[in-house]
């Protein structure tokens, strides 16, 4: 049996035992809406990811764009727009059937819309959920991606090639949209292998926090990527218009990096 499967099964067993001990499973699922995608993971994952007594409603105004079929299991593009549901405190994106379900969490500050585009590694066909926490209620939108898969258990390209090390944490980016607009798009990528730890002999090595601040030092948004985010992640965010953005990041090995992206002319 592949190592990742053993790990996943062991993790599931542990979580199951814990949830039984706490005795909350039946309560937690009492008000959970039926899953339109009919995944058996839905009732199991929601209490673990969103909380035992999370209040959950489905909301199809939350846009979750993703290809119906993944052409490249290492880079499946997803774009989430949860701006229809008001000021989002936390946006959690997860894939039911990935060995590590949570792909990332996005925390836009007041005034920043909950819009984010990224790529992730898919292991097999799976629903993708975007859960937006607004006034204590999780509003959930979703999409389905079919995939031949294997993305999560493949080593990164970087891990096979030492040249990335010299560029680790290197950021490139730009903003799109005029200075006098209310909002603009911020596009940036970071050189990083984003290894999941599920490929044989390669430990998990991934960016786990990115913070964006404006020139006045105020936080615009915080991004908490997890292992499934693709190698050399490219993010597309919608932010209030600013003259420049400072991006500060760190990975799970304690490497820190930062850069300032100037408003393009």
């Amino acid at each position: 049996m592949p190592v990742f499967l053993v790990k996943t099964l062991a993790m599931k067993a542990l979580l199951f035992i814990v949830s039984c001990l706490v005795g909350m499973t039946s309560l937690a699922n009492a008000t959970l809406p039926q899953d339109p995608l009919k995944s058996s993971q839905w009732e199991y994952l929601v209490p673990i990811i969103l909380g035992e007594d999370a209040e959950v409603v489905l909301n199809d105004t939350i846009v979750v764009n993703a290809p119906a079929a993944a052409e490249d299991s290492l880079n499946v593009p997803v774009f989430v727009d949860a701006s229809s549901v008001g000021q989002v405190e936390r946006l959690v994106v997860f894939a039911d059937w990935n060995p590590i379900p949570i792909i990332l969490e996005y925390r836009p500050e007041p005034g920043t819309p909950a819009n984010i585009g990224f790529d992730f590694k898919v292991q097999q066909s799976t629903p993708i959920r975007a859960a937006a926490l607004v006034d204590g209620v999780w509003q959930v939108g979703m999409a389905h991606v079919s995939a031949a898969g294997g993305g999560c258990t493949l080593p990164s390209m970087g891990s096979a090639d030492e040249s990335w090390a010299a560029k680790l944490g290197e950021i490139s980016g730009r903003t799109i949209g005029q200075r006098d607009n209310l909002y603009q798009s911020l596009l940036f990528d970071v050189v990083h292998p984003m290894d999941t730890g599920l490929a044989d002999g390669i430990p998990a090595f991934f960016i786990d926090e990115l913070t964006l601040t404006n020139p006045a030092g105020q936080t615009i948004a915080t991004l908490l990527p997890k292992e499934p985010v693709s190698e050399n992640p490219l993010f597309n965010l919608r932010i209030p218009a600013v003259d420049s953005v400072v991006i500060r990041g760190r990975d799970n090995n304690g490497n820190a990096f930062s850069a300032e992206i100037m408003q393009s002319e």
Partner: protein
Amino acid sequence: MNRVVFLLLLLCPLAQAYSLKPIQITEHVYVFQGRTEHFSRDNQGNIVNTGFVVTGAGVVILDTGPSLKYGQAMLDAIATITDEPVVKIINTHHHPDHYFGNQAFDAAPTFATASNQSQMQTSGDGYADGLYYLVGSAMVGTDPAPAQFSLNSGSEKIGNVTLKYHVFTGHTFEDLVIAVVEDKLIFAGDLVFGDRAPTTPHADIELWIKSLDKLRALEFRVLIPGHGNIASNHSAMQPIDDTKAYLTWLQRHLLLSAENGTHPAQLIAEGPASPWDQLGAMPDEYERSISHLYPEMLRNTLQAPIWQER
């Protein structure tokens, strides 16, 4: 497809995997025309045009389809046309739907250009995994059989027929086009798609467009595209022009979208513009092309920050 036929197919899931009908195109050339779709269980991967030339001194096979069973069905169908033995198999390029049937032709040598031979050797197993996933049981028994011998541009006479080989580039690194000189026929491989969206997993769009211009200058009356409808006489150039028009639009549309910072998942959600959305295998091929071509274009628009620390 006729609804009654479709229902009958549903009722007989164990029916013969492929029913290939040879269509005589010119005096010496026959074609098996595939559906203008993406791979699926329903079409069993029969989405490609393969062909054969009855030379008078043996049969030359032009591409061999997506599976062992497809190759076997080709052999069965050829036997209804001629008693001549198969003497040569030519693969236009290394994409699996053009050579996975090689396995069925173990009595004759298989040929491709040298770079395609080595691509078949390195990527065959990966393609096989992909096709088993998409096509399923029709693939049973298929083991990639890379072309055994290399072939270059040039010409040769076999029986009553002169075959001329042209090596172009763009769809893949080397795209072989076979001219059947006496029949004024061109077997274009995947450089040309007829009413079917072009596929781009190894494409260089700019080189591809240049190759189409060169292809247009060759002398022919009939053109067999790698996928889609066969074209002849006054409309023989049409699939070349259509393929060029689509590729030109695709390249421009993706570059503009990258400049605007559009996310690939948003592009996929928008779908291909009219009239390209009417092509066969849409929107699947457009979505695949975004994955093949767009990430690099998008990253190329990024700039160095004004400062950085790491």
